[in-house]
């Protein structure tokens, strides 16, 4: 595919050129970098660090209205969902882009989920080569790479004054066309520079774990008392699951407020006790021990069984944001060493 060069100071022009898209980009809000729909390219804040939430929510929102009921209890599609504009998500880290790859089979197979798929198909991911990984990043241990184009439509690499722009997919090509006015061709020197950066990136990842054989260990030691030790400090909050690019559990609720009745899909978290609470009052995962174990089991055993890869992209958010320092990498090591 084609390669371009984008002057950093013309980035806004490039974004402005994407008139036919709804552009989501990281913006700075109350001290956080979050992905939001921007109307003015100046709002964009190309901070790849400090993104406590993955862009997962652009395609798979935390609450999503599926149906609207009218006074006669007849269900209708909510306004604005059908025939919406194509979207661009700008400033995606490669691990998060890879996260969508993990989500896709979940929503495609068996029961194709139109709500997810429709948006997924009309959404373009513009990623950035991750030159400065977090202290807790471990993407290389789960098959990722900080400069991987996997899952992206366009990949940008920071060369200092310019971005090196690689078009990965045909969808990406379309975007490049729309912004062609501000794009130029890279020199071969710039090409080399870019490749050099890509080669260096994996070495900057400081946390590693050999995941080979983890799945069987988890299965083998499913009833080990060590799980209780590992989960002792967990407080059963939803931070790890809600910030995870690959977690996808949801709940369907009907809600009625002020005469508006909706059927909604809302994220759920396997870390909550209510997640598996039966109507009878029985709970097969009554304590945080079972719940924490389940999450690891799901990501590193079940996901491999189902889709052939671990359900984890190694973004490190669950480690960084866990208020009690439940450390996934450290825990995996403990299991591995059993």
């Amino acid at each position, binding site marked *: 595919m084609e390669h371009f060069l984008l002057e950093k100071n013309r980035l806004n022009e490039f974004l402005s050129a994407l008139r036919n898209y709804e552009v989501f980009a990281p913006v700075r809000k109350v001290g956080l970098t979050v992905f939001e729909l921007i109307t003015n390219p100046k709002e964009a804040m190309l901070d790849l660090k400090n993104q406590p939430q993955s862009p997962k929510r652009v395609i798979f929102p935390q609450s999503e209205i599926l149906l609207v009921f009218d006074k006669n209890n007849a269900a209708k599609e909510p306004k604005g969902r059908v025939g919406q504009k194509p979207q661009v998500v700008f400033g995606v880290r490669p691990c998060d882009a890879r996260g969508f790859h993990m989500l896709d089979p979940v929503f495609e197979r068996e029961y194709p989920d139109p709500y997810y798929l429709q948006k997924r198909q009309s959404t373009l991911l513009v990623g950035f080569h991750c030159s400065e990984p977090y202290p807790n990043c471990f993407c290389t241990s789960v098959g990722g790479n900080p400069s991987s184009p996997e899952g992206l439509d366009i990949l940008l690499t920071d060369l200092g004054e310019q971005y090196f722009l690689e078009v990965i997919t045909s969808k990406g090509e379309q975007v490049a066309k729309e912004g062609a006015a501000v794009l130029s061709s890279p020199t071969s020197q710039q090409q080399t520079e870019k490749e050099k950066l890509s080669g260096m990136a994996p070495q900057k990842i400081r946390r590693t774990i050999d995941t080979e054989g983890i799945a069987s260990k988890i299965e083998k030691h499913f009833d080990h008392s060590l799980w209780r030790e590992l989960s002792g400090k967990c407080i059963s909050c939803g931070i790890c699951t809600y910030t995870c690019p690959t977690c996808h559990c949801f709940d369907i609720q009907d809600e*009625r*407020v*002020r*005469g508006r009745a909706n059927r909604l899909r809302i994220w759920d978290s396997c870390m909550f006790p209510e997640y598996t609470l039966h109507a009878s009052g029985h709970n097969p995962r009554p304590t945080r021990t079972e719940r924490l174990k389940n999450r690891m089991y799901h990501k590193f055993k079940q996901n491999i069984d189902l889709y052939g890869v671990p359900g984890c992209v190694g973004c490190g958010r669950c480690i960084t944001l866990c208020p009690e320092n439940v450390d996934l990498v450290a825990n995996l090591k403990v299991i591995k060493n059993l």
Partner: protein
Amino acid sequence: MKLGVYICHCGVNIKANVNVAKLTKFAEQLPRVRVARDYLYMCSEPGQQLIKKDIEEHGLDRVVVAACSPRMHEITFRKALRSAGLNPHCLEIANIREQCSWVHEDRMKATQKAQKLLAAAVSKAALLEPLEEKEVEVTPAALVVGGGIAGIQAALDIADTGYKVYLVEKEPSIGGHMIQLDKTFPTLDCSACILTPKMADVGNHPNIELFSYSEVVAVKGFVGNFEVTIKKKPRYIDETKCNACGQCAQYCSIEVPDSFNLNLSKRKCIYIPFPQSVPACYVIDPDHCRYLLTRDCTQCLEVCKQGTNAIDFTQKEELVEVKVGTIVIATGYDLFDVTTKPEYGYHLYDNVITGLEFERLSNASGPTTGEIIINGKKPKDVVFIQCVGSRDKTVGNEYCSRVCCMYTAKQAHLVREKLPQATITVFYMDVRAFGKGFEEFYDRVKQEGVKYRRGNPSEVYRRGDRLVVKAEDTLQGELVEVEADLVVLASGIIPNKQTAQIASLLKLSQSPDRFLLEAHPKLRPVDSASDGIFLAGCCQGPKDIPDSVAQASAAAAKSLIPLSTGKVIIQALTSFVQESDCRGCGFCVEACPFDAIELREVKRGRRVLEVASVNEVLCKGCGVCASVCLSGAIQQKSFADRQILSMVAALGEEYA
């Protein structure tokens, strides 16, 4: 869940301002509603039949009535449900009369509001649960507070039925204001002559225990089971020994103003309020007795030792506890303080007196043995001024005192009788002679030459050694100055000064006029809003003697209902605890004003823990506990969070 909705027209009361047909249509489409009907008078027998029939035919589970206030007919409809075999608590009432059709002018908006109220009621009704009503035993005794004519009558009526009565009177003798009166209007009976036999009956009645010179200081419990604390003030005389011989008073050297005679004469420091006092027992005035103050006089003690030896200076204040099933309040009235109307010069001139002072002056046992003598002279010109402190916003008494017109007429008659030569003028605003024989009596007094002039006198002042009453004769439209030697102010009636205290002691309400509030002005005029507490006499509003007696007998009859059935149903709206949600913090225990909640141990799995537990007999159903519970474990029946929230949600919706 099947709901029936019943919408009342209340004649035109609701229908005039709420589109009932639209409301019925609206009700039909509400969730779970099986039938919705409207009817002219839902509370009538055919109206109730409608509900009962539907319950039977459609198998309704819950009933919603949109009609008048639940405070009006909740009981009526509950009975209807019960008779149709449905739990009476499966009823919800939407108040579309008092709080809708009667208060809004815009019919469309009133209808919209009625829709909301109805939707809220329907959504709550769906969540209502059948409740069980429990019965408790009733203590077969009654308390009567106040020993005036109303209290005496109520006590006698209850006692005659065979129940124990505790009668509490704050003064040393029963009798109240009536015993101070001379003659009674319009029949001119002697007040004491008709009252003293009843007083004696009280004193002798085997079922009446009289606490004179005592006050109620605390009341706990609820209908059927009140616990009352009575404070007995020391008389310093042994009631069982004193034979009222009066020797002590003859020896006592201290003279103080005689409050029974409204300070128009003196009495001794050891005294009996009046000769026919019940109990016939002397009492020592602790504020003036030299022995009690400085221990330097034992005159009475010495003389009494030679007789019955009844004097006992060691007496102390005593607290007595009694248990009763019902309570009658008959605390009576006080006279309006006429010094707050300085224009009448009561505080300046001896010959300006109040109506009650006139009663003592005219009474044969009074300070002048019944002769009308003022400042040593018989007055030649007497002026009566009506409505002093009644119908007067400026002193906060907007009401008519109901007795002044007639007692003034009576007093004018007494002046005419005793001073045939005197000129008598009555200044009035309106003469209200509404009772049996009143108008006839008014006619008679006018025929006796009493001049009635319409006008509210504006001031009384002195001219030489006489008084001048200045007023406009409004019928003539001219200013008149009437000279007088005696001016009688028809002072009005105000609630007894302890009314507020009684009200707070028993959690009763006062109406804006500060009298005690009855449960319903028309239909429950002798009930208070609290079950088991009844009102008699002037504590509830100004009344003459026959009205007081009638209300007292009515209160007695009402209070006898629980006593004679022996059981009361305790209200079902108690709190209950969902034990699995309770974390045993005890907030509800601390918040409960009735000590009705305690923590008790339960086993949950292998864990032993404490959870709250409600004593349903003590629980009054206020729901305070539910509002402090953080886990929502304690809830009030029929007012649970989810029930209230469902109403909130329904009121938040917009309906077409």
